[in-house]
């Protein structure tokens, strides 16, 4: 890791010093343990605050379009896929981007740790081990134990496009994506699934942290906030929460790059990914499409073939 961050800082410094970019978007240490926070470095002097480790969980593509000027972005595999979709959707100009690619072996999902040790007071990462001091006790974890679910099945740890690669690339068996999590839910009965999502949706407080974390939620006005027409009546309740979440994943269908940022951002622990993953699986199975795996290509719903499957038709 140390070599990598040195190289990142060096490159960032060079890009800023040479005036090739106006800003470097990367990560710095956050105010909470085990959570890095996005940072925007505007001068060569600032690059030393940049960090790179398993706490760099944000999808920085979410900031790319909102940041004016020429920018360099520290980019993980999933970040690069989001950038690709944003490019496909005219949200970015390729020439304004300098993609500093870094292969990513996964980020930490704090939820399990929180459940065991309570609020984290202090944490240290070394040699693939994470030592945590918590309100309700201390514990040491192997990284694999606390790796985010989405990272565990990640097929794109290496950026799909980049201007420069830092560090080694990670080899990954490029066979078909695994959807064991989706299948597990699909195999449950409809009423079990309904119960599951009722429970999840009753946790949602509609803070929209998921929407804000998502690099591909960039509408000027989200349909939930629209007054004319009013899609939702305005209450925060289980049914309307589901309307919001279902509407959101339908909007992300064929675009979602499965970075998991929405779920990690959720303060309530809502299993948002369960919805997105279902759509990702369907789009893959039905249309052999994966979002943002290259600069070329289109979101799945922007195209069609004349023989797309039709299992959804009414039974006769």
């Amino acid at each position, binding site marked *: 890791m140390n070599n990598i961050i040195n190289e990142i800082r060096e490159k960032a410094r060079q890009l800023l010093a040479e005036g090739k970019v106006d800003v470097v978007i990367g990560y710095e240490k956050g105010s909470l343990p085990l959570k890095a926070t996005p940072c925007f470095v505007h001068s060569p002097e600032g690059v030393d605050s940049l960090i790179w480790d398993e706490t760099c969980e944000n999808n920085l593509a979410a900031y790319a379009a909102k940041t004016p000027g020429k920018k360099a972005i520290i980019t993980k595999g999933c970040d690069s896929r989001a950038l690709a979709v944003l490019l496909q959707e005219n949200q970015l100009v390729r020439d304004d981007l300098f993609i500093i690619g870094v292969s990513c072996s996964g980020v930490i999902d704090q939820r399990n740790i929180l459940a065991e040790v309570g609020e984290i007071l202090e944490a240290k990462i070394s040699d693939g081990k994470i030592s945590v001091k918590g309100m309700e006790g201390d514990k040491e974890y192997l990284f694999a134990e606390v790796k985010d679910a989405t990272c565990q099945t990640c097929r794109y740890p290496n950026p799909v496009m980049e201007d420069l690669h830092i560090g080694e690339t990670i080899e990954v068996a490029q066979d078909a994506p695994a959807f064991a999590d989706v299948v597990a839910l699909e195999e449950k009965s409809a009423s079990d699934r309904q119960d599951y999502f009722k429970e999840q949706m009753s946790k949602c407080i509609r803070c929209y942290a998921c929407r804000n974390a998502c690099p591909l939620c960039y509408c000027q006005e989200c349909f939930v906030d629209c007054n004319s027409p009013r899609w939702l009546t305005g209450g925060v309740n289980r049914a309307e929460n589901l309307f919001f979440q279902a509407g959101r994943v339908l909007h992300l269908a064929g675009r979602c790059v499965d970075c998991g940022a929405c779920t990690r951002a959720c303060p309530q622990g809502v299993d948002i990914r369960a919805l997105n993953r279902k759509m990702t699986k369907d789009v893959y199975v039905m*249309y052999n499409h994966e979002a943002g795996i290259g600069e070329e290509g289109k979101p799945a719903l922007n195209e069609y073939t004349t023989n797309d499957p039709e299992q959804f038709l009414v039974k006769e």
Partner: protein
Amino acid sequence: MIMGEIQVDAENKKYEPKIAAFLCNWCSYAGADLAGVGRVQYPATIRTIRVPCSGRINPLYVLKAMANGADGVLVSGCHPGDCHYISGNYVARRKFALIKSLLSHVGLEEDRVNFSWVSAAEGIRFAEVVKGVTERVSALGPNNGIFKVDDGGAADE
């Protein structure tokens, strides 16, 4: 009593579902007209909203219908290849497949939301589709689905 008819009990009025039906102007709406011309009888359960093309169906319409408590939704367009606008139904088809799949994944009853292709020549088939959808929605009973807003939302937790 007739087979398959829902039991009428003294206290409960017989349940008649209300189904929001989005029909494309050029094929399915014409097919529905043809059913009428042929006097093909079917249940009086659908409330038709005519749209130019099945491609006009915003996925949120389906969610909205469910949220408003419609007992069912029927969306019908031209058969693939017949679209008056060349590819509206192809564009729609991917949306429909995903809506259907997502709704069933979150545990909405499979038969609440229905999609079909009915051509301008398929009057009888249109009636059959409505009959089938009505039967299945009737069997499910009123929409107490997880989208329905006025069921109290979180109240049952």
